[in-house]
């Protein structure tokens, strides 16, 4: 029985380290102070295509997220299908485009926890499967923005 107690204690000591969880393929480390490869497909008001970098709620959120990681964003525009294929091959770090958790690509790639909910629609972003440190960093960032998301979304809807 003492063994069990020691074990439980050990679990919490080990996992209390600051960089936990980690990525199997070090995505977060590569992004930090480097480049964030973002795939986007147009889907207003979430992602709005322009001549330069995309705008819309999700595109703006990602720009801010990249800043928190001191990363430069490289935008890749394509269809959702192609973007997901690139994400699966780890040619992208992240895909946005007003994706909801109902999306059927769930088994090849991963989605963040829904960061924005309206009835029957849970909005998520697509990430590389199993890169947990990156996923947690993105989810943490999105969670902090939660309060002012509805008003921000409105500004893009009215354009």
């Amino acid at each position, binding site marked *: 029985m003492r063994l069990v107690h020691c074990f439980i204690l050990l*679990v919490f000591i080990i996992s209390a380290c600051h960089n*936990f*969880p980690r990525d199997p393929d070090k995505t977060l480390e590569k992004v930090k102070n480097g480049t964030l490869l973002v795939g986007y497909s147009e889907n207003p008001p979430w992602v709005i295509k322009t001549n330069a970098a995309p705008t819309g709620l999700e595109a703006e959120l990602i720009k801010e997220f990249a800043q928190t990681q001191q990363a430069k964003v490289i935008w890749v525009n394509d269809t959702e299908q192609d973007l997901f294929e690139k994400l699966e091959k780890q040619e992208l770090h992240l895909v946005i485009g007003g994706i909801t958790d109902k999306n059927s690509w769930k088994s090849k790639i991963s989605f963040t926890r829904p960061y924005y909910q309206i009835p029957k629609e849970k909005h998520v972003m697509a990430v590389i499967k*199993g890169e*947990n440190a990156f996923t947690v960093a993105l989810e*943490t960032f999105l969670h902090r923005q939660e309060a002012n998301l509805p008003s921000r979304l409105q500004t893009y809807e009215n354009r």
Partner: protein
Amino acid sequence: MKTVKTFEFPAELQPLYRKAKRLEWLTIAYLSVTVVVMYLTMGNSQAMKTAWYEDLLSLTPSVAFLVISRIFLKPANNEFPYGYHKVVSIAYLCSSLALFSVGIFLVIDSGLTLIKADRPTIGTTIIFGHQIWSGYLMIVALIWGTVPSIFLGKAKLPLAQKLHEKNLHTDAEMQKADWMTGVAAIVGILGIGWGFWWADAVAASLIALDVIHDGFKNLKQALFDLIDQIPKTVDNQKPDPIIKHIEEFLRQKSWIKDSAIRIREDGHIYFGEAFVVPAVTTNLTQHLEDTSREIENMHWHLHEFIITLVSQLPTSENK
């Protein structure tokens, strides 16, 4: 036609039997909560999924025990002249078969996860407004599913031995060993946290192999019971010493020249026959009935013992 008399545990075992029933109700309540908690926290972890199946299945021995406890005490009747004791063996077969087949399913499932290099994504969860890594929640759920079950298992083991109750014994053994499942799954989740995606699937495979091991051991015993293997002790599967004791007892009777016995087990109780070559010719019926009763009174397990007179012992291949 002689029907088998009604059977209840002897008076001194009645409180133990009631205690066992209470513990099994407690187990069902506890496991139901565990299954829900595990399901809610499971996420993408294969190890959690496997541990969840194991917990769900470990409900079967407790449920089986409580269901059959309503049946096996029924008196024998014209339709079922040997009583209902065999339901114990049938319940035992059902729960061990469930365990075994789910074990195989889980090994395949976890093996495929490993081969396909399917990486588990574990993100965050909001608990009371705080965002934490879901892996920690899984670990908490696993600890809840492990520590109390060790105590429950330990409390049930001695009862199972005294009551000669195999369903209860399987249940207790599985629960006592459950900490290994918990630890394996926790290590798997910590492995994901450390960036080793395969740790989860490896942990899941180990848990699944343990389920198969339990399932196979019990399935074998359940089948042996149904084909009337000689009675074995519940705790260590040795031939029950009472067999030797009866043989010795018959040998010492002056009215018996030679004897051979066979005993089988139906749930909690034993049925036995002796083939006896008598040494005397007078008062045979009296001798026979007395000896029969003396043997039946040796232990509460010995439910019915029939003595048959023969002129020559049937030959047995073992001797």
